[in-house]
């Protein structure tokens, strides 16, 4: 039964409702050659696994499954590693229960 927990995040996000604001990501990663340790920690700390390492070794963010918790902002905003805002009104995760 125990598959990789990381495998299961996508399954978890599948339960949720989202209204994705295409082309207007509310989180942006600052372009970098080598990711900072803060950015790298987001690969594990993001509860929706929005952060991933691409084949060039850069950290990328895909906000479609974002739960809007603010963890990455707390870790990465002050250093300038990311720019963070809430999605536009009405967009993003739509909790049914919350």
């Amino acid at each position, binding site marked *: 039964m125990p598959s990789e927990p990381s495998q299961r995040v996508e399954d978890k996000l599948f339960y949720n409702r989202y209204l994705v604001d295409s082309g207007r990501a509310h989180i942006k990663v600052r372009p970098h050659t080598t990711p900072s340790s803060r950015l790298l920690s987001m690969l594990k700390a993001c509860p929706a696994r929005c952060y991933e390492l691409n084949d060039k070794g850069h950290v990328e963010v895909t906000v479609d499954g974002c739960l809007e918790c603010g963890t990455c902002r707390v870790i990465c905003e002050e250093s300038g590693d990311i720019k963070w805002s809430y999605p536009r009104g009405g967009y993003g995760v*739509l909790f049914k229960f919350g």
Partner: protein
Amino acid sequence: MIEEKFDAIVVGAGMGGNAAALTMAERGLKVLQLERGEYSGSKNVQGAILYADMLEKLIPDFREDAPLERHLVEQRFWIMDERSHTGLHYRSDDFNEEKPNRYTIIRAQFDKWFSQKVREAGATVLCETTVTELLQDSHGRVVGVRTDRDGGEIHADVVVLAEGVNGVLGTGAGIRELPKSDKVALAVKEMHFLSRETIDARFNLKGDEGVVIEAVGTISRGMTGMGFIYSNKECISLGIGCLVADFQRTGETPYGLLEGFKRHPSVAPLIEGSEVKEYSAHLIPEGGYKAIPQLCGEGWVVVGDAAQLNNAIHREGSNLAMTSGRIAAEAICLIKSRNDPMTAKNLSLYKKMLNDSFVIKDLKKYKDMPAVLHTHSQNFFLTYPQLFSKAMQDYVRVDGTPKLEKEKLMLNSFIKARSWSGLFSDALRIARAWR
């Protein structure tokens, strides 16, 4: 631009924002409440437990139509190791009273109801509107907000910031700092649906009785954290939260912890066969009294999670939000009734009134607890639970070892793990911070 000027703009429709908007609207103020979700509640995440007393002060007959889940008759506190839990349970039939004290609720549903009360009181509630910044005049005075709608500048005499734990507007305007990673916890939660009868049977409940389980121990893998299981009518809210700084330090994943908690032999049977319908995540302010930012300024006040008003020791947050929202609104109404301007000096009435309430008194009582628990997490959340569990097993297992010998082994295991001075200073630290 909306030409109309309001007496007050409330940013956010959680517990604090709704309490503030309701109180001001009931007293005749012209109130605009702005919420970024598709409806009030659709962005709000909590366990969730509702404390009746604080809501009664706003809506005395709330029990008539509020979407409540179960009233709580039992509190279970668990200390866990890998395969066991030691429980301290308190259950009383006294809680089966005419006006119960605590309820489980589902926030998206409850907040929708709360928002209806705000509208009925006369406030204008505008959803699907994200406030992007505070409008300040040349003297730095807050005079309104800018939203993401076309021409979205709106003016008011005072802005109530009930924007939640992230507090984007306040930090953007430089009136408070960004939450620090050692002052906020990240909690993840799932909603597990089961039949009402199954929940009743598994938790020993009947009618609308409910139970709360809160758990610490190896489930947080040495981090400062806690797991929780709340019974609703036809579902179970199950989650776990740990300090963001601890996640950052250890590289543990939030969903990995959640899966571990669900697989624990004491937890798995409770949710067996359930259908999961939602996965959510939210930050919780954990810094306590010392993390409270400036509460008011020229043309603004801040309430609830945005003001870091959360009692981590008693796991109370929504009632502090509700109370701070109500008190801020009462202060604003008083100032307004005197026809005084919404200056920092006049608005400091809110701070004074809050200081006199349980909100600040309770947070002050535990002002040193966060430091103790956050800096000694390995001891309090891993070593002690393991030692304690082992001691309990030795105590109940009958194997022919003389009791005196067992007690000696038990004591030695504690001394070996923490040393006499370690045990003594841990006890002293907790006692001092608790006082």
